[in-house]
């Protein structure tokens, strides 16, 4: 029974963890390139060079002494995001929506005193949220105002779009929609739902919620499928450029769509998860193999790679 199930998964082209690690991550992602995607400050620097937009950064705090410079750097901005440069899984991120006399007001309504906020930054600097536990930097970044396209299927927070690209070809995509269970975070582990996006049409398909396939948002009750994602071609192109940007052959790009500025690259992931297959009800492995069999000439430019992907992954 087990063998039969394994054979079925193989026939469906489902990618497993072991194969992802051995045949794609270890083969195509050099360790030296990891630091580029693990550190958001470095990611932003290289993204700028390739004309890929990221949310503006007001201040990078590297030491406790710099914490006093927050007020000056923020100027009269009332809202911003505090995040660790090397954080993962959304941990350590605070969305500040207002500044008052008594302190900073977060999106969930919590008020951080100056002292409490300083503690959060000190925590980030000491490396609590960083991937390997090393010392870290804290970033004050512009707050993104999400495009209303997903408002009907979002509970608070900012939905983000994950595109996996292989050898510079976008192969699979999904949009992660925050729920009440995920506490407004677009994180599948915490209970956000992930809706697959058809690469060629740019419309959402089915969704995954805690390993179950769902068709409606659990909090708003609205259907998650059939939503056309704006700026789809532009985002595919951004994802396709990531290979030249980072030197990583297999990566996941996380994007957000700002109401005024359009898509921003939020972060890159050198070990993207496998749940995207459930969201799309499609196997990644099959698509990765298709990319390997693609004619050589399509790999010459990001545009030609996107064109091939849109044609192939319908």
């Amino acid at each position, binding site marked *: 029974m087990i063998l039969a199930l394994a054979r079925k998964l193989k026939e469906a082209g489902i990618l497993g*963890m072991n194969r992802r690690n051995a045949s794609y991550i270890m083969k195509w992602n050099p360790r030296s390139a990891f630091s580029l995607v693990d550190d958001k400050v470095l990611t932003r620097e290289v993204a700028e060079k390739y004309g890929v937009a990221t949310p503006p950064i007001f201040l990078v705090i590297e030491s406790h002494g710099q914490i006093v410079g927050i007020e000056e750097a923020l100027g009269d901005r009332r809202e911003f995001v505090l995040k660790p440069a090397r954080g993962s899984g959304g941990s350590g991120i605070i969305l500040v929506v207002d500044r008052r006399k008594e302190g900073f007001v977060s999106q969930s309504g919590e008020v951080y005193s100056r002292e*409490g906020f300083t503690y959060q930054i000190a*925590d980030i600097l*000491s490396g609590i949220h960083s991937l390997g536990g090393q010392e870290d930097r804290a970033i004050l970044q512009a707050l993104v105002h999400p495009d209303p396209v997903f408002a009907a299927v979002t509970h608070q927070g900012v939905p983000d779009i994950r595109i996996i690209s292989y050898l510079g070809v976008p192969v699979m995509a999904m949009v992660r929609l925050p729920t009440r269970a995920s506490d407004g975070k677009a994180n599948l582990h915490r209970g956000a739902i992930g809706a697959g996006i058809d690469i060629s049409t740019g419309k959402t398909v089915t969704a995954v919620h805690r390993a179950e*396939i769902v068709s409606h948002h659990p909090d708003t009750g609205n259907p998650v499928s059939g939503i056309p994602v704006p700026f789809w071609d532009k985002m595919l192109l951004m994802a396709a450029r990531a290979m030249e940007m980072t030197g990583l052959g297999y990566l996941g790009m996380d994007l957000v769509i700002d109401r005024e500025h359009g898509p921003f690259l939020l972060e890159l992931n050198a070990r993207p998860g496998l749940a995207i297959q*459930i969201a799309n009800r499609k*196997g990644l492995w099959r698509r990765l193999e298709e990319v390997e069999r693609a004619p050589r000439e399509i790999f010459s430019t990001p545009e030609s790679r996107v064109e091939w992907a849109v044609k192939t992954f319908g």
Partner: protein
Amino acid sequence: MKKPALWLALFLFLFAGALLFYRVLFLGYPLLPTAPGQTWAISIDLYVETGTEGAKVALGLPAEQAGLMVVEEKISAGAQSLDIHLEGPNRIGIWSVPGNREKTLVNFQTAVHVKRGRLGGDTTPPSRIAPPAEGGEEEALAKRLVAGWRNLPPPARLRAVAATASGRWADPPPENQEIRAWSGVREKLGGEFALRTLFRAADLSARSVSGLLLTNSVVGSPLRWLEVYDGQKWERIRPDTGEFWDRRVALLPLMHGEREAIRVVGGELREVRYVIRREPLSAWRVYFEQTRRSERFLDRWSLFRLPEEFQETFRILLLVPIGALMISALRNLIGFPTFGIFMPVLMALSFRNTGLWYGLGIFFGILLLGYGVRRALDKLRLLLVPRMAVLLTLVIGCFTILALVGGRIGLREFMAVGLLPFVILTMVIERFFVLVEEAGAAAASRTALGSALVSVITYFLISWEPLQLTFFLYPELMAAVTALQILVGQYSGYRLMELFRFRKLVASR
């Protein structure tokens, strides 16, 4: 990509296999190291009376031969020095007893290890040197008695001669008058001499042996038997009845030839007692003694050559790679979550001191307490490194209290708590907390339970003595373990858990 890994694994397998075969086939290592044979402790008490001059005692001792190993020997009473002489197949211990003694006890103790079924299966052919002729007249009579059986094959001839001890004469029987004459010889010189002479007259190699039947017993004198070569093996025969000793019976020779197993010169032997008892000697000791005697290269480089106090460590250490292999398999073949690879192994090692149940209890107790404290610490807003320092101190504080409580109530398992891996325990608390925050209490508990389960399995694995002994004897098996680790490392198929995670994707098709 994958080929080199497979070749390396194959090479490691072959390397381990070749060394193993070499040891088993050429160095006589056992295939199943737990069944090496039996060990017998023999205590010999002699009561000797001496005249003014003092006396010398000559005692036949077990000599090492194929299948027989002398594990230890000592004089525990009655004499200061022991000289051991080797005479042909005999090993004779000679010592002096001072003069003017009444019934002095001389005690000698020896322990021998006998491989199963090896005492009684002697097949070495007799030496070509003919034994000296014994008594011309009797010999001539003996030759006439066996003349009719000269053309029988040796085994049949042997049986015919042996049967004469009980008065049965096979066809063609010799003349009655000569049989009667032979009865006279037997009465005068003894059944053993008569039988031995007949065997030799019938051209069969025969020798007398004094020794012991290895069974739990106390005997007043050694047993005597005849060993006769039937062309293929030595048969052992009771001289009084001519019956054969079954080949499975372990008879331990002490003295070959006509000499007595004990002789006292210049004094009188008052009493003799052989106490024979089976000893539950551990297999470790047997192999230790075996390799200590060998000058073969691999034996000289055996772990048994280490001083005994260091051997203990390696018995356990050699099994740790199997634990690591198991953890690799659980993670990559099954997809079972654990707190890293070292934590379960280190926990398993410490369970050997605290005991399994106490160890597990202490682990979960400290983890829960640590989690509670970690939650509280979160509100204090401590920086990372000092916060870990506080947790570490908490863990060691718990150890101290447990050890003190153990000391009060006399519970060794609590006192041994200091051997738990405290650094790992501290990190487990921190990781458990982070896991609860990020993935929920259910996922964190699963990982904690998974780690504990793997620790328990690893504990049983490294405590299994036959496995310890096997790896200690054959450390090259680690190469085979590495080969398996490499094979697990290059497995790129689905993990068992993934089959369930993704099964909806194929079911909905």
